[in-house]
């Protein structure tokens, strides 16, 4: 309860500001219309009109909520206009990219921690990879994966999502795998442990808290990657494509509804990953938090 009150307060303030902004921004159109018709607009007329335009500059919150309701609950899931259908495509891309990102991140971190050569050669490239704007890289990835004969857009989209999501995992895992101190390593040495034992019994379990902490960042990055991929690969499906269509065809409702659907989906993903993290911590003997 104590957590909810501040959140709701901020939300209420935001909504008030939003309504005020909607009235202000959409009023231009209302005044234009009134001028052409040669009529005067009263304040109450202004408010009602700015709240109910079909193509407002800034839709009011309840308009977005209505549009979301229509495109999720009332539309059939198979319909191209359903946000659930579009969201499921984005979700699939995100999860694929997230999965690849985790695997690549862990694999690279392992090589970097276990071998000096890996540390010297791979780490700088991993850092450089994140300085290239993904929007510039996306079309190249599409062309290359088409040339490689992958057929669908799903593969390049997942690659783009993975491209963003592997990095947090990599950085955290490098830190986590190198976290055991000299005493811990010496202890295993006194048992005559092999490198393999050191990795599986000490380094990997020690890195888990770092790994879980990186998952939340990583899943968010994968999601951003998926949406950016949809925006920049001339995809026709997915929440990113919906946003683009909304903006290109002058349908602000679609654009805003897709944006909110994306935000809600991202929140759900982060919430689920957070829950998984708590569960895993508990399984590894941690104190209940």
């Amino acid at each position, binding site marked *: 309860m104590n957590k909810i009150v501040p959140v709701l307060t901020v939300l209420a303030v935001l909504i008030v500001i939003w309504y005020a902004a909607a009235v202000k921004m959409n009023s231009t159109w209302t005044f234009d219309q009134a001028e052409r018709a040669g009529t005067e607009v009263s304040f109450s007329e202004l408010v009602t009109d700015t709240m109910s335009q079909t193509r407002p500059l800034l839709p009011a919150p309840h308009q977005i909520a209505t549009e979301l309701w229509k495109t999720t609950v009332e539309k059939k899931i198979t319909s191209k206009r359903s946000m659930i259908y579009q969201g499921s495509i984005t979700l699939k891309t995100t999860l694929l990219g997230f999965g690849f990102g985790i695997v690549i991140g862990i694999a690279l971190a392992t090589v970097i921690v276990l071998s000096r050569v890996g540390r010297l050669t791979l780490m700088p490239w991993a850092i450089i990879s994140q300085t290239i704007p993904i929007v510039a890289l996306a079309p190249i990835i599409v062309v290359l994966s088409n040339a490689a004969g992958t057929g669908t857009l799903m593969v390049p989209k997942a690659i783009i999502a993975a491209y963003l999501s592997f990095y947090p995992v990599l950085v955290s895992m490098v830190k986590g795998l190198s976290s055991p101190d000299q*005493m*811990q390593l*010496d*202890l*295993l*040495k*006194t*048992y*005559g*442990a092999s490198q393999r*034992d050191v990795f599986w*019994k*000490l380094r990997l*379990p020690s890195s*888990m808290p770092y790994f879980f902490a990186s998952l939340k960042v990583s899943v968010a990055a994968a999601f951003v990657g998926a949406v950016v991929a949809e925006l920049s690969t001339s995809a026709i499906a997915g929440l990113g494509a919906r946003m683009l269509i909304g903006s290109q065809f002058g349908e602000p409702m679609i654009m805003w509804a897709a944006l909110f659907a994306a935000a809600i989906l991202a929140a759900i993903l982060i919430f689920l990953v957070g829950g998984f993290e708590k569960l895993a911590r508990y399984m*590894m*003997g*941690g*104190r209940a938090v």
Partner: protein
Amino acid sequence: MKKPVIDAQAVDLTFQTGDGPVHALKDVNLQINKGDFVSFIGPSGCGKTTFLRCIAGLETPTGGKLTVNGISPEEARKSRAYGYVFQAAGLYPWRTIAGNIKLPLEIMEFPKADQEKRVEKVLELVDLKGFGKKYPWQLSGGMQQRASIARALAFDAEILLMDEPFGALDEIVRDKLNEEVLRLWAATNKTIGFVTHSIPEAVYLSTKIVVMSPRPGRITDVIDSPLPKERPLEIRDTPEFIEIAHRVRDGLRAGHDL
């Protein structure tokens, strides 16, 4: 004459550091027999921990001859000749106490059923029976250190090396653990090497006290304790005990004046 378990002859160790070479050990000669309880005492930087690490094969002497069970420390380490207890318990937080004790057994590939039996046995030995299923954070510092001793005992090595195992514990807990170590030693008849800062601890526990001094790290005195094997805590008030403690203190002071 029986061969010593640990035999150091003119052992030298120089570390190469950024500020030039550091002479950590100089001309160390020492024989430790089976069943001895040997304490190494001296101020920081006297090389007592370094010497223990040499015995364990974690450092390699740059000169002289050092053998453990007649073979090199490196080979002895690989043949799992000793258990090592560090200053910090270093238990894995993601394993239960029993899981932690099993760690060396898993690495040394003891059969599963044997592992369980050994865990039970050593838990009883260190008086932690019934705590196997607990996680380290549920135990006090003293209990954690006992668990780490149990871990070092689990695979039945002949030698037990302890590097200031009770240094981070308070005096009351330390007294109790000292008594327990003596009981353990009597029960298992192991050869023990024990590094400490504390004069009473060294005198109370040892059959042989090695006094060391720094720059360069070397042995200044070796005292064979005349105290009986059976030692209640009250023995620390007897004239014999005080006399040995006095000699240790003199040795430490002499080393400092040089």
